[in-house]
């Protein structure tokens, strides 16, 4: 099964991808239109700092979204994994990750110039933003680095050892997230130089985490109960609350990526909300038509899918495109999650690949279709604005991310598995991760 996937992906990769790599397009893709001299703007700064806080809230929001979907004996496991990522990755980021991702280095990664935030001060760094303190940009990006590995948790929920998880996550952040972030967003990053458009992280966050999720789900294997009985969510109200926090925080994720308190941020805010709404509605209707009734789980899943898909496009498309993007992502993810997953028989427990992977791929491609310079002159026109070349560039970025995330995650997983074993023992899986990994019970039986 895994061999099939690797083979397919390698042949697709070798066939086409580097057609555009020799292009002379070297204009860095600016996230905002400012070419002004470096001067701190209080509106921009406050918006970016608030956005950083909004994105931070998405990680506990995700924790409850996922937590409500697992069985009651495993919820603390999920919450702990999310919280520890917030802690561990926050440190990794300031010590090493920010440098690897954003320091102006080679095309592959940023290098070590900014290790320990050396050289990252309170004055603006105009290559990223001329109007906010450099550290504001850094801490905003930190929250992205935190939530991306947390998305993968959905794939291996209820069966991964905590120790292996911690090691794997730190390695993954350093060798998968940081390089891809550099390629797409860093100064000197080769995908950025190619002209790939990714406003807030369709490739860097969602395709990346989605592919990592697929790999880990395939390699760690199905949960023991998977073929025997269904495991319904133990607390859907938690999941709804989590989804609401995600939607709220996503305004920081997308609109904050404008790095300015201006019209572009407003555009990103509007299309983010619109895409989420269209997608939520669509999934509810699909549920109604194909499974009998609209479900809460389906509706919130649709909302999240809509948010995923608009992420790369938020600063480049308008409301009409947002509606289409939202409708289409729900159709695609609905099929991926309810049909394809069961047909192929892999246990992506909480649909991290089905929602973030598939949604991110669609969003990245849709950016190549719908992007318009009328929305953002510093971006590019897409296919429907008369520029088919951008679609090609988007496909390159998409495929590259898919392949690298898949392979690199696979290698890291195998290393960690060799060193310490990744999956819990059968007995522990039956007792639940809360008790076996953390000596804690989420819900007391008596007092």
């Amino acid at each position: 099964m895994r061999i099939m996937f690797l083979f397919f992906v390698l042949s697709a990769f070798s066939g086409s991808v580097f057609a555009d790599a020799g292009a002379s397009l070297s204009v860095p893709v600016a996230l905002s239109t400012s070419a002004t001299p470096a001067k701190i703007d209080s509106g921009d700064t406050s918006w970016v700092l608030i956005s950083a806080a909004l994105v931070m809230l998405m990680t506990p929001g995700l924790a409850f979204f996922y937590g409500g979907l697992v069985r009651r004996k495993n919820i603390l496991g999920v919450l702990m994994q999310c919280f520890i990522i917030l802690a561990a990755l926050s440190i990794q980021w300031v010590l090493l990750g920010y440098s690897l991702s954003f320091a102006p280095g080679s095309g592959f990664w940023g290098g070590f110039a900014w290790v320990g935030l050396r050289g990252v001060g309170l004055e603006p760094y105009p290559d990223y933003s001329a109007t906010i303190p450099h550290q504001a940009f850094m801490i905003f990006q930190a929250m992205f680095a935190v939530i991306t590995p947390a998305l993968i948790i959905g794939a291996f929920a209820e069966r991964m050892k905590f120790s292996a998880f911690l090691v794997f996550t730190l390695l993954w952040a350093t060798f998968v997230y940081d390089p891809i972030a550099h390629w797409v967003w860093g100064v000197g990053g080769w995908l950025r130089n190619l002209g790939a458009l990714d406003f807030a992280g369709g490739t860097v966050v969602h395709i990346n985490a989605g592919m990592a999720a697929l790999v880990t789900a395939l390699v760690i294997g199905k949960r023991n109960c998977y073929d025997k009985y269904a495991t319904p969510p133990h607390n859907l109200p938690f999941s709804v609350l989590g989804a609401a926090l995600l939607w709220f925080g996503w305004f920081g994720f997308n609109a904050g990526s404008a790095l300015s308190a201006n019209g572009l941020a407003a555009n990103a805010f509007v299309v983010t909300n619109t895409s989420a709404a269209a997608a939520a509605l669509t999934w509810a209707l699909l549920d109604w038509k194909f499974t009998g009734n609209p479900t809460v789980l389906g509706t919130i899943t649709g909302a999240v899918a809509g948010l995923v898909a608009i992420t790369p496009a938020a600063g480049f498309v308008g409301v009409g495109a947002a509606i289409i993007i939202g409708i289409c992502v729900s159709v695609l993810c609905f099929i991926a999650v309810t049909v394809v997953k069961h047909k192929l028989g892999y246990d992506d427990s909480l649909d991290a690949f089905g929602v973030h992977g598939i949604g991110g791929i669609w969003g990245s491609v849709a950016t190549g279709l719908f992007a318009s310079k009328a929305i953002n002159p510093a971006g590019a026109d897409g296919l429907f604005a008369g520029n088919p070349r951008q679609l090609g560039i988007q496909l390159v970025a998409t495929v590259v991310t898919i392949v690298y995330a898949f392979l690199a995650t696979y290698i890291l997983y195998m290393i960690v598995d060799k060193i310490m074993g990744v999956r819990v023992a059968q007995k522990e899986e039956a007792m639940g991760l809360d008790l076996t990994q953390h000596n804690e019970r989420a819900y007391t039986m008596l007092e």
Partner: protein
Amino acid sequence: MKLIIAIVQPHRLEQVKDELYKEEVNLITVSEVLGHGRQKGVTEVYRGMKETGNLLRKIRLEIAVNDNFVEPTIRAITKGAQTGEMGDGKIFVLPLEECVRIRTSERGSNAIG
């Protein structure tokens, strides 16, 4: 002495309790359980994954009675819980060997009521 165990629908509990109090049966223990007899469950759907024939929520009553209260208790429970639909529930009568009132350490038939 007998121990009566009754499984009834959750939404009939209040009527069952009223009927029992009318028969002067005031001491009961109530717990929530899952179960089914011949009644089929509702289909639950989670991201396209369907589950049918599930265990349903039921209420379980445990009542310790002296022999002369067995028939009145059965009558009361039946009156309160019966709807004529499948899923109304069941009543089991078990022999009870000993009964102790913890507060006073009384035993036997005096301790039951």
